[in-house]
């Protein structure tokens, strides 16, 4: 088995049973890193190092030797995403699982209404607007 493996921003050291996560601080602020790290304190030892402006290094050493390092690292990345996204403006309720947007559009477009159906309720009888026996131009001339 390989002693080390690199996957994206994860450097896995199987021999010494720890991993290093390289974090881009322009995407994930230090606050986000702290929040993510706190969720792992019960199952791993974490050390934060590096350069807060260029590259934040998080060393994660699981407390249990049999832990899956890759899964641990990927779970940490997911936590970074979660806390970073929480800082983004909320645009809509994301409680539903992702589904095809194209399917949503096709369902909404299935009932098209024309002006005759008067969907906004703004239609008024001709007589109400222009009176009996006249059109708008006649009334303006008089």
């Amino acid at each position, binding site marked *: 088995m390989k002693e080390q493996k690199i996957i994206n921003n994860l450097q896995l050291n199987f021999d010494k049973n720890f991993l290093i996560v390289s974090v881009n601080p322009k995407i994930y602020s230090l606050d986000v890193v702290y929040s993510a790290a706190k969720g792992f304190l019960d199952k791993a030892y974490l050390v934060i190092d590096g350069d807060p402006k260029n590259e934040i290094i998080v060393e994660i050493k699981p407390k249990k030797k049999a832990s899956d390092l890759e899964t641990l690292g990927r779970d940490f990345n997911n936590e970074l995403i979660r806390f970073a996204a929480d800082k*983004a403006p909320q645009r809509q309720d994301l409680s539903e699982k992702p589904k095809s947007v194209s399917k949503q559009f096709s369902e909404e477009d299935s009932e098209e209404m024309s002006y005759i159906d008067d969907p906004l309720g703004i239609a008024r009888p001709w007589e109400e607007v222009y009176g009996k026996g006249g059109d708008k131009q006649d009334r303006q001339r008089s």
Partner: protein
Amino acid sequence: MERVEINKTDREARLSIDTRFYDYDSVLLTAKAFAESCWVYVDGDINSKLMVCLKPKSGEVSLEEVGYEFYNYVLGLMKNAGE
């Protein structure tokens, strides 16, 4: 360049998202939504191109489909896009 690059070894889909067209916050919110069913990694330059890696937690999903669904989801979130 493929819109969705597939890494068969690691079973990942990789996307390069241009932030001139796709809003950064929407990308993050989408990543959060996808984090339920995938392991997600976002990196790159928020003023230029973001790299998004998606690894489904389940092995029965098409990587290409996951990638394209991500693009669609971001577009769906983007406020005022096309309105």
